[in-house]
Structure formats: C-alpha cells, structure tokens
C-alpha cells in the first residue's frame, strides 16, 4: 500500500474528444486509477506509457499552477 497524490491533465478538444495524462502514479496503478474515465467516456483510441515522466514534470507543473 502506498499513498500518493494523483494528478490528471485533461484536454477536451473542439470536437468533444478527450485526452489526458496522469502524473504521480507508478506501475499498473495509473491505468487502474483512470479506468473510470475510460469506461465512462467511450473508446480508447491511443495510449502511450511514459517512463520517468513524473519527477521531471512536477516542477514545471507547479510553476504553471502558481501563475494561474
């Protein structure tokens, strides 16, 4: 058992299709944590897994939030 924050960046395009990326979860947990979105919204058309994404991006993301 581990306790983490999970953060989603979601984009809804002009046609109403959705893309999102997940930060803050490692391993299989990230697909399981967002399964509710996949199930609720429709059909997965593309999925990429990215390694070591979270650590690098956290700082940049915080800067953006502080500006908002």
């Amino acid at each position, binding site marked *: 058992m581990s306790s983490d924050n999970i953060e989603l960046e979601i984009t809804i395009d*002009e046609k109403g299709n959705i893309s999102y990326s997940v930060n803050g979860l*490692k391993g299989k947990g990230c697909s399981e944590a967002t399964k509710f979105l996949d199930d609720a919204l429709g059909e997965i058309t593309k999925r990429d897994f990215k390694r070591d994404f979270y650590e690098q991006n956290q700082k940049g993301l915080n800067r953006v939030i502080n500006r908002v």
Partner: protein
Amino acid sequence: MSHFTKLKTKILDKNCLLKALTNLNYVFEENSTIRGYNRRTRRGNIVIKANGDYDIGFVRKSNEEPFQILADWYGAAQSIGCSRKDFINNVQKEYATTKVLHELRKKGYRIKSRSISNTGEIKLLVVKRGFVSR
C-alpha cells in the same frame, strides 16, 4: 510510469446529455417527435424543439448504446442557427465536459485549474490527495 490516453467520446449518459443541452440553452422534450421535411416524423428519446418546422433528435435503441443524432439537416440547420458540424461538435464538447466533471467529482478529484484556449480547447488540471494504490 505515467500514461497519455486519447478517448473518442460516446454519448451514453442521458442525465449528462440533458444537463449539457440545458447548459447550451436548448429547449428539449423527452420521448417526442422529430419533425422533418414534408411533415415526416421520427420518434426521438430526446428532441430539441427549435424555431421553425424542423427538430433535432437524439435516439438510441437501448440504454447500453450511445445516442445518435437524427435530424433532417436540410431544414434543421436553419432552425437551430448553426451547421450540422458545429451543432454536433458543440454538443459533444459540452457533454464531454459535463460528464468528465461529474465522474471526477464522484471519485473525489478537486479542480485545480480550468482554462479555454483560443481554438476552443478546454484544459482541466485535477488532483486527488492521498490516493491509495494497491
């Protein structure tokens, strides 16, 4: 490991569709008639009653299927004041936003920021604290 996912939106949730149509200021009736050319009609689960003689309907055969949009666009585009493409995009976008926010709140996510780009894209940043993974 993180992931990046793309989803094609399907309109499956009737309550979210009704809410989206209300947000877009459309007047609708449930289980009504869709009026088309030459007074022909079809049955619709949800029907937008626009100005003029043409309506736009949402139909599906069962609750497990996504809604399809049904209209005689020859006259419906004029009735509703926008093209078929614009109407479908607007409804899909409003539905997707309504549905995403509904599902996120249900799971305890908090919205950190929300913005709309020049091209009409909606960006949401949401967070859930103390997520426990097995």
